[in-house]
């Protein structure tokens, strides 16, 4: 759905009482709902295709992470640079990624963004300034700093945003990258998506600090902890950090407390997560919470919700239909692209 389409929808409903939240209009709120619901629906469809044996390789979902992924990215301008992680389908979409293109990538098709060469979320899109990640976590932290350094040198006012996991905070690149960004006062925002588990390793086996955001103090930059299941809080704080970065005030480290409502990947039953934790998470579903709030404010009526949900279903159907019908790459092209052609 385009922004205009969303605006058109809104004209049909009367929102009189709603003023604004976190500086966001009713239209923004509906847009956030659209991206969060779209992310959830797209990923659930992917999981179902995986179970049908139509997706090869691992499937890593961002269920529980939508508010962080969407809310933080919503604070960026189109020219800003986004370096998402593997649970950030929501960030890709919010930055403007094409649904069919995502589906083609996930199914390893010839006309996907990596032409079937890499899998899952390991892809970017130059046209929307999204950098593709690689699999090993932490390596993109200095890369995001490098992208921000380029904006600084070129004086383009572009801000770089990079998502990090809680496990990623243990790797040496985390220290090297953030120290470097801080020393050079670079326009970059690091968002730690602390979903409590790095595969099967809980926070308590990863680090000793109560909050990872505390690390920021050491680098002389702001460190902020937020509730990553509340899209408005995510947006409010990341917007502040993005604006700050754009004004030349340097990097910010945000720790978004979120949750991984599914296994590490769809082949992981996550038996190591205690039952009570799983139940707690289920009650705090960020998409459900947003719906509840928007409905209580009268912003999202049942009719409007139905209309948006239907549209999302059609869009998701269309994307995966395209991808499922698309052809696989030719074997003869396998070694192409190691160097400039």
């Amino acid at each position, binding site marked *: 759905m385009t922004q205009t389409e969303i605006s058109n929808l809104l004209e049909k409903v009367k929102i009189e009482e709603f003023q604004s939240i976190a500086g966001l209009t009713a239209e923004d709120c509906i847009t956030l709902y659209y991206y969060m619901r779209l992310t959830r629906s797209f990923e659930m469809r992917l999981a179902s295709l995986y179970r049908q044996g139509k997706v*090869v*390789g691992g499937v890593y979902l961002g269920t529980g992470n939508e508010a962080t992924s969407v809310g933080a990215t919503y604070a960026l301008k189109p020219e800003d640079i986004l370096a998402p992680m593997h649970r950030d389908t929501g960030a890709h979409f919010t930055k403007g990624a094409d649904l069919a293109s995502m589906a083609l990538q996930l199914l*390893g*098709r010839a006309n996907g963004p990596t*032409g*079937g*060469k*890499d*899998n*899952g979320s*390991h892809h970017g899109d130059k046209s929307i300034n999204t950098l593709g990640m*690689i*699999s*090993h*976590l*932490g390596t993109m932290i200095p890369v995001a700093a490098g992208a921000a350094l380029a904006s600084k040198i070129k004086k383009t006012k572009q801000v770089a945003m990079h998502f990090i*996991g809680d*496990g*990623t*905070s*243990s*790797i*040496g*690149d*985390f*220290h*090297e990258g*953030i*120290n470097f960004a*801080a*020393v050079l006062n670079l326009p970059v925002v690091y968002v730690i998506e602390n979903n409590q588990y*790095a*595969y*099967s*390793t809980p926070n308590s*086996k*990863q*680090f*000793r*600090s*109560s909050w*990872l955001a*505390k*690390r*920021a*103090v*050491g*680098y*002389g*930059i702001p460190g902020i902890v937020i509730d990553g299941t509340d899209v408005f809080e995510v947006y409010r704080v990341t917007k502040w950090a993005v604006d700050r970065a754009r004004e030349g005030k340097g990097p910010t480290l945000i720790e978004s407390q979120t949750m991984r409502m599914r296994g590490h990947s769809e082949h992981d039953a996550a038996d*190591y997560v205690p039952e009570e934790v799983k139940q707690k998470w289920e009650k705090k579903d960020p998409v459900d919470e947003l719906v509840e709030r928007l409905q209580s404010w009268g912003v999202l009526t049942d009719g409007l919700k139905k209309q948006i949900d239907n549209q999302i279903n059609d869009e998701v159907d269309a994307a995966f239909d395209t991808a499922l019908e698309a052809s*696989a*790459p*030719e*074997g*003869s*092209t*396998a*070694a192409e692209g*190691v160097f400039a052609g």
Partner: protein
Amino acid sequence: MSAQSKTKSKAKKSLSGLSNKQLLNAYRLMQTARQMDNKMLTLLKQGKSFFHIGTSGHEAMQIGLGFNMKGGHDYFYPYYRDLTFCLTIGVSPRDVLLQFLSRKDDPASGAHQMPQHFGDDKLHIVSQSSPTGTQYLQAVGCALGSVKAGTDEVVMVSSGEGTTSQGDFHEALNFASREKLPVVFLVEDNHYAISVPSEQQTAGSVYEIAAGYEHLQRFKVDGTDFIKSYETSKEAVKRARDGKGPAIIVADLVRLLPHSSSDNHKKYKSEEQLKHEKERDPIPKFGNLLIDEGFTTQDDLDEIANEVKSEIDEAADWALDQPFPEKSTAMDHLYAMDYEWPELKEPKSTGEKIMMVDAINHALHEEMERDEKVLVFGQDVEDGKGGVFTATKGLSTKFGRERCFNSPLAESTIVGTAVGLATRGFKPVAEIQFGDYIWTAMMQLRNELPTMRYRSNNHWSAPAVIRVPVGGYIHGALYHSQSIEGYFSHLPGLRIAFPSNAADAKGLLKMAIRCPDPVMFLEQKGMYRQQFSGAPEPDKDYLLPFGKARIVREGTDISVITWGAMVQRSVEAARDLESDGISVEIIDIRTLNPLDTEAIFDSVKKTNKVLVAHEDNLTGGFGGEIASRIADECFMWLDGPVRRLGGKDCHIPFNWFLEEEILPQKENILKALRDLAAF
């Protein structure tokens, strides 16, 4: 000690709990360190050695810490500027000069390492390498050893402020703080990393950076002030010894000499700055304090200096008379020299057919049962997950989380702490989750793990086992498919095993765990649960020595030399060729280091034609080495070119059709063998 006996009786009894004798000893140590620097620079100018790196300006802090620790009890990872510290805990000027002059009896390295790379097994100074930063994680592993052994030994590790920009510094602080380990980190901040000033190095200050780690006690101190350095160290060491967790001391001090004898600091420090640094020289500062407080007189201090000078001159003359090492010993202690691989034996009994991953799991269970020093750690190795491939399933439940534990998501931490634990007599069997992710540990794997025995001249060793799932054919794309043996086979000092079936995997892994050298144990993850690689399980006493290839299949026309995933594909290709009347012999090398060249050459001499096949991409693959040795040793027996087959020189793509194109298949082997047969 004439200087002390002459000390005036009106002197105060003590300062900060240090007796008159101790205080004068501190002064003597300062003089010794300073004059050692000067003497070594003189010897350097005389062409007696090739490198010097100084301690001058750092003396007060190092003695302050050294006074609070016990050589031969605590463990030490001093960096190249810590001459004073080493002298304080018991290293003699003679020992230092033996290394400086690269003499045979150098106790740190037997003339293998550069000067000022300290090491002393009796004093527990763990052999030091040059890439500064690597020592932190080893110190953390060593401290983990203290906790696991239930002792009160504290571990000291130091570096300059520049090194704190390395990722390993963060990883070490994180792990030490997670485990509340007895480590004292000393950061000797002399404000210059060679020529780079600290404001270009660190955002804020190292003291501030260390703020985000709970249970890590931070101290800031003027490291040119001996009394303050001593008091701060006392608190930090006591806290660590009492089990209250790690401490970091950030000492503000001066580097009075250039970075090393290869540097000229006048190129980047102003006259004024050099003058200012000289004013902070800790030795006159401390000397004046002793005089002002009535502990001594200038004459006595001068006498100490003179005595030290004669001692050092004498030590240097002695050291110059000592012999250089024999050239014939240049390769000594690369591997354990007094070790012989056991004889190859058939298993006494065999059980039911098991898959390769289960064989690995059983080997780990049996070895942990046999030897309580065996520790298993890595990412997600604990139950409920039990390893992402279930290779470590049940270990934490059976042997406790003290012996099988999750590491943080940091490969350098895994290998670095394994090195530290191994030097303490533990047998770490660490898991890297995927070979594709091993590269962040490359510094530890290249410069530390395989060099420990050689660089310490057999005084220290690090016989850890690093298990790594590798290889493709699982649609894992660029980052879950890599073959890594080509890189690591290049490293001297590292044993490499690469089993192709369950029985070999069990025998080789059990052998690896008992091997006195570090072992990289490669497991082709596509074969973990593959029927072809399943085998009847050998008994628990079955050990497969390294360096013994297996003749998988006898033949008379062509030899295939291979390993890992290509064994199965070669066997299938050989079966297909039977109907063409081509008889193929297949040799599975099983270990790359040591390599069973005898078995390879015997086979080639019999068949006169050879194909070397591996999954890894062709250029720089280990097959090139084997082919070259065959060409050297079997030229007269060859009836055709030595052929190689490997993956294409490309990254491994996700899409299954593309993957099939890049990784070698049975059809590629068939074609190569047919070509060779027709040659």
